[in-house]
């Protein structure tokens, strides 16, 4: 057990080395140097992960410390790696998507200097800096997933948050970007607040932060009660799990901490794909799966998880249908899919959640990178109302996005079908309280998912070519900096993106087609994850599904006859009708639906409320305490009051003083010593 894989350390260190070189020596090595060194680092890491996968697939588990970070109160805080199937899966997904994004970025950021004012020094090496950041992100994410303890988990957790902050605000001259990154960091901190309290409880009751020690003591946590509110004892394990899950709600953008993710689209599109779709936002899902030995012991926590997940899955999907910004549609779709994963966790179907995490990483990266490809072609236009008919001009982007949409909507035999259907089926079988509610919501979400996915495809790639019409509304978001030349606003003819953009799209589209088919058998029912995931016997969802499972082909055939398929199809058909057959209808419906459309466009009013209540309230409180407490009460009444008395005395004493204060204050220092010694020793 306690053995270190000889290659393990180099998996995170390779991208870190790339990040450091590109970050500190960016100017010296130039742009090509930066993208080569960082891409190479990630490629090495991917290759090593593959070798480690071979060993882990052979049944080995590696768990060992690298160094002792600190020790206190009998707890030894360590940095170390636990590599089992769960870890190695994440390592492969993270590194693969990251490598694709590195390559894609070469094309996407090629003209980044246009996004900066000409005289900005920060814009001079922004290209190199961007590569340093995404490699640093890869390092942080790997440290997170490879951790064998809660301390390092929290390290990685906050480190990915930091890089996300830096990248959302990458174009720091845009007010919207630096608003969005601050918001993202603070909302995540709210989650981390709960997360840290959970870790604190674990440290207090287990005396260790190492996973293996804590899991060994899980029964103790499940038999201890604490009274947070006197008179109402709670199971300790429930409190711990809910605290930890609050962390996951921040990072994985679950309702009501989801508000930062849509705004994070202010960042350059490659990081929307890497960080805010494929990897970082799934950290919460991964964490809960990792903690399955704890979550399984708390029915309360599982119910909480399933309800939050289902609310996110359905209500965030609804917002996607009114968005006109192509990236925001994908962003809300991501929120909804994360909700599906969370719902699966609540149903004790951790493997289904992880499975969906993996397939989603591929097809959502395709959708984001495809959206990015469109945005480049449209000269940084993101509004779908100004697109249309793009499929003729960008066939590769169109096809890959279509594959992404089919997978996202859950059509067989695309990857998303297998993972999403497994989740729906698991929730159907789940005995967790709230599973019925969740089942209804995620079923309804399938229709919405089919609709918004194909609304995107039809709106942007089919129908009338609207990009030749003169612009009459505000410029898109993913636009140039303020001082950049806005030379090309006339009619544009979009064209297919260069190969550095299309090749990653194709490479990500392939697993979006086949990953589900290939992986479902082992991943869900073949005990692929082995001991990494624990499911209590009283939570039978996955076991029941395994009994019904007769191979991927059987699942596809069966899937064609079940409700989710027809719901998704109905959703797609509705989109076809509204955006191809009767493109005049959406506006009419919007007018007729009045309040409902307004609620969706206002995103249920969360942003408004948070701005008013939390941001405004905190400033109001701060000003009140400062002016009222510090200045009026303490200083005004007490301090200056006594100062007046002293001042009066001093006005008399002042008669004896004059001249240079520093000169004779120095003599005071010496004088004090000399006098004390002489005077007191005189006897």
């Amino acid at each position, binding site marked *: 057990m306690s053995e270190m894989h000889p290659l393990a350390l180099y998996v995170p260190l390779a991208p870190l080395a790339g990040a450091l070189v590109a970050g500190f020596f960016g100017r010296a090595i130039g742009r090509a140097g930066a993208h080569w060194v960082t891409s190479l680092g990630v490629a090495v890491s991917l290759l090593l992960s593959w070798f480690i996968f071979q060993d882990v697939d052979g049944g080995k588990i590696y768990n060992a410390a690298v*160094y*002792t*970070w*600190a*020790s*206190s*109160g*009998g*707890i030894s805080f360590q940095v170390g790696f636990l590599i089992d199937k769960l870890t190695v899966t994440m390592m492969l997904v993270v590194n693969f998507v990251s490598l694709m994004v590195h390559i894609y970025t070469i094309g996407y950021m090629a003209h980044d200097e246009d996004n900066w*004012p000409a*005289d*900005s*020094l*920060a*814009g001079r090496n922004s290209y190199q800096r961007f590569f340093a950041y995404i490699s640093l992100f890869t390092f942080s994410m790997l440290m997170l997933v490879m951790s064998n303890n809660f*301390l390092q988990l*929290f390290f990685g957790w906050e*480190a990915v948050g930091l890089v996300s*902050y830096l990248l959302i*605000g990458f174009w*720091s*001259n845009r007010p919207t970007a*630096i608003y969005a990154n*601050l918001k993202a*960091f*603070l909302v995540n*901190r*709210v989650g*981390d*607040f709960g997360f*840290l*309290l959970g*870790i*604190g*409880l674990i*440290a207090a009751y287990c005396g260790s932060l190492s996973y293996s020690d804590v899991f060994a003591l899980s029964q103790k946590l499940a038999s201890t009660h*604490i009274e*947070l509110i006197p008179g109402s004892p709670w199971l300790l394990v429930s409190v711990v799990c809910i605290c930890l899950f609050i962390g996951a709600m921040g990072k994985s953008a679950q309702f009501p901490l989801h508000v930062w993710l849509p705004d994070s689209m202010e960042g350059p599109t490659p990081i929307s794909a890497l960080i805010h779709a494929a990897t970082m936002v799934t950290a919460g899902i991964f964490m809960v799966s990792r903690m399955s030995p704890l979550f399984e012991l708390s029915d309360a926590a599982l119910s909480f998880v399933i309800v939050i997940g289902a609310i996110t899955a359905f209500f965030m999907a609804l917002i996607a249908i009114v968005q006109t910004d192509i990236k925001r549609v994908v962003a809300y779709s991501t929120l909804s899919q994360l909700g599906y994963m969370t719902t699966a966790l609540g149903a004790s179907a951790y493997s289904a959640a992880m499975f969906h995490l993996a397939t989603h990483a591929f097809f959502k990266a395709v959708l984001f990178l495809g959206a990015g490809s469109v945005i480049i072609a449209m000269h940084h236009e993101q509004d779908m109302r100004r697109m249309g008919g793009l499929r003729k001009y960008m066939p590769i982007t169109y096809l890959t996005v279509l594959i992404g949409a089919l997978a996202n909507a859950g059509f067989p035999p695309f990857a998303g079908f297998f993972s999403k259907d497994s989740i729906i089926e698991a929730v159907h079988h789940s005995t967790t309280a709230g599973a019925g509610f969740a089942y209804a919501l995620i079923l309804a979400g399938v229709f919405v998912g089919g609709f918004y996915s194909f609304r995107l495809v039809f709106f942007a790639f089919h129908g009338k070519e609207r990009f030749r019409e003169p612009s009459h509304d505000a410029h898109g978001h993913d636009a140039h900096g303020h*001082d950049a030349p806005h030379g090309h606003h006339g009619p544009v003819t979009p064209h297919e993106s260069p190969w550095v953009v299309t090749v990653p799209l194709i490479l990500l589209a392939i697993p979006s087609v086949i990953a589900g088919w290939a992986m479902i058998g082992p991943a869900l029912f073949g005990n692929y994850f082995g001991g990494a995931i624990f499911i209590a016997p009283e939570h039978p969802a996955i076991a029941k599904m395994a009994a019904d499972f007769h191979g991927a082909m059987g699942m596809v055939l069966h899937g064609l006859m079940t409700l989710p398929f027809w719901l998704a199809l109905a959703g797609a058909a509705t989109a076809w009708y509204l955006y191809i057959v009767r493109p005049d209808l959406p506006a009419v419906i919007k007018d007729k639906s009045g309040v409902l459309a307004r609620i969706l466009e206002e995103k249920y009013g969360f942003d408004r409320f948070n701005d008013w209540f939390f941001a405004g309230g*905190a*400033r109001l*409180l701060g000003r009140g*305490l400062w002016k009222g*407490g*510090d200045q009026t009460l303490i200083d005004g009444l007490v*301090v200056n009051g*006594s*100062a007046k008395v*002293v001042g009066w005395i001093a006005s008399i004493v002042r008669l004896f003083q004059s001249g240079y*204060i*520093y000169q004779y*204050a*120095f003599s*005071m*220092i010496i004088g004090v*010593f000399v006098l*004390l*010694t002489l005077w*007191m*020793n005189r006897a």
Partner: protein
Amino acid sequence: MSGLPLLSLAIWLPVIGGLLVLATGADRNAGLARPLALAVAVAGFLVTLPLYAGFDTQTSAMQFVEMRDWIPRFNIHYHLGVDGISVLFILLNSFITPLVVLAGWKVIEDKVAQYMAAFLVMSGIMNGIFAALDAVLFYVFFEVSLIPMYIIIGAWGGPNRVYAAFKFFLYTLLGSLLMLIALIYLFFQSGFSFSLLDWHELKITLTAQTWLFLAFLVAFAVKVPMWPVHTWLPDAHVEAPTGGSVVLAAIMLKLGAYGFLRFSLPIAPDASRELAWLMIALSLIAVVYIGFVALVQTDMKKLIAYSSISHMGFVTLGFFIFNPLGVEGALVQMISHGFVSGAMFLCVGVLYDRMHSRQIADYGGVVNTMPKFAAFFMLFAMANAGLPATSGFVGEFMVILGAVKYNFWIGFAAATTLILGAAYTLWMVKRVVFGAVASPHVAELSDIDAREFAILGALALSVMAMGLYPFPFTEVMHASVDNLLRHVAVPKL
């Protein structure tokens, strides 16, 4: 311990060196005063290194002890020694001094020798506070340390310096008068001893302990500063020159907190336990209340000053939850705060030297003209917000863990700093560093030069090293902290 009297060297080398610098006289000799001051400061740091290298982590006993008669008539000794609680502060203090000398290298053009001398003398005196084991010696150092700081604020400070210096002096002097009474009381109670180590073993009734505790509390709470005796700090910082703010935040604030560990807890352990609720309450008010106040500050120095008070709330909280995680976390937090707050004030100094404004509203888009500076500022801001892998995380993490163990809701209240600290720090960063270039002045800013790079780089390395590998710091503390906590747990009525 044989060999050189290291602690005496740590105290007197900077003091005497400072007097030598002073002797260079008028500003026409500033070209001599500056390098001499730097040489003294560096030497002062080098002589403290053997204190760490030769430190025995296995014992809680005082090390590098020096004991001479000073005033035999009153049984007063020149008694020095360090344990795992104090040794790191001497190192921190001696590390900060050369940086402060460097920071004032160009900006201070008026009374250069006096300026440099004041910092060197103050550095030696503060080492004396951390090393003194005789109460009178401690008291003298403690009081005398006020004078150079008073001068620094009064002579090189901003427009309101007289009010600020006076407020600073008054607040702290009033506090320490009560301490003097407590010391005299203990002198008589202990059968005419001023030895701190004797006092630690002294049996005292709970009532007397309570009075002693309160007397020490007033003296130390002002220094920390704890809510509600904190209002001198923002004023002092705003008026102080950059170097003064750095020393004030990095070292001076630690004197009060150190006093709790050296006096309050071991001399009045029963009263400490009885009044822990009060200390915890005041600490949490500092963390939460001050966190909100910091949020709305418009002056960068004030914002960082309030942030200091909030962070020091973590220190006092850690002390009074009486578990090793809390106390060691608090000590780590003190060291880290020395690096981070010092660095933050230096960063503001860098901006102030160029723009002569500390108002957040005057800045914006600094990253466009000062990218190197912006990277440092970002790092220190993240450390201030307690981001893992920086030193700012370590202490906060340990104290929060200790607090949750003590009581969930106390941990809950303390952990709000995760949100508040990030909010006030990063909101400032957003308005100062990011955004479009806000004014022609910002457009003309020049990035940091080699000297500034060296100062900020040294602190950045410290912040990162301590965040990535705090083990060498916690290792030094264990024996002494364990001993202290055992001592506090035993009633001595």
